[in-house]
């Protein structure tokens, strides 16, 4: 019979917070890179346009940092537990868009933010790691020396 670990270690909390921050940076820089390309441009031209944008490379840099951080999180927590927390970046992106780009936050968006928060709360109430009967601590990949 499986059981689950419930007390969330500090390293996992820090990793999840960092994941949300990096995911926010990725989404914003990626969006800026893609929005610089005309919508009616052919796909090949659009791809070249995206690849020539410095924001695309900023997104890739953040992506690398995210990969390093994410491996550390996944070494300690279930994938199905940790991954939904990244949905919090939808809220941070919405907040930043509202503050910096003066985008209107409609009541529907407010409902969406609330639902995401409720969903993450539910998931945070579940065990962060499935304890398998034959398993010990995972050996893991050291992201510093993969």
């Amino acid at each position, binding site marked *: 019979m499986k059981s689950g670990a419930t007390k969330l270690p500090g390293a996992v909390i820090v990793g999840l917070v960092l994941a949300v921050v990096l995911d926010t940076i990725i989404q914003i820089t990626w969006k800026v890179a893609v929005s610089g390309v005309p919508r009616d441009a052919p796909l090949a031209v659009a791809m070249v346009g995206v690849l020539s944008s410095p924001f695309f490379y900023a997104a890739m840099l953040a992506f690398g940092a995210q990969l390093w951080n994410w491996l550390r999180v996944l*070494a300690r927590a279930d*994938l*199905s*537990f940790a991954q939904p927390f990244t949905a919090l970046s939808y809220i941070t992106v919405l907040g930043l868009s509202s503050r910096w780009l003066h985008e209107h936050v409609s009541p529907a968006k407010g*409902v969406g933010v609330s639902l*995401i928060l*409720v969903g993450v709360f539910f998931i945070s109430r579940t065990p962060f790691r499935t304890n398998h009967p034959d398993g010990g601590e995972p050996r893991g*990949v050291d992201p510093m020396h*993969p």
Partner: protein
Amino acid sequence: MTPELTGIFVLIAAVTVESFAQVFLKIGAAGGAGISWRSSRPAGGGTPGISARGWVLLGMAAYLVEIALYTAALHFLDLSVAFPLGSLCFVGVAILSKLFLGETVGRIRWLGVGCILAGTVFVAL
């Protein structure tokens, strides 16, 4: 096929690839153990033939494919459509985590995923 429909197909492909990429990274982070089709526990002794580093590289390769697919999808679709569809990845990851990693995905976790999914639809409105 309309551009919108093409975009939806490309986006669903991106979501599928991203879900598998996450599973590959998890297997790598766990030291190579974890593949177990419909099993309640991970396969003991890891996965023969592929090292932990190999799984991480496989996950990274899948992410590169996902980046190309998602960028292509954004070319065809409004963000208001791509955004909630992209969040289907939470569902894909939950299913694959249960199937391949033997993780416990109970009702409360599914409820959480459902709320997040509904939330992204509202955020995109």
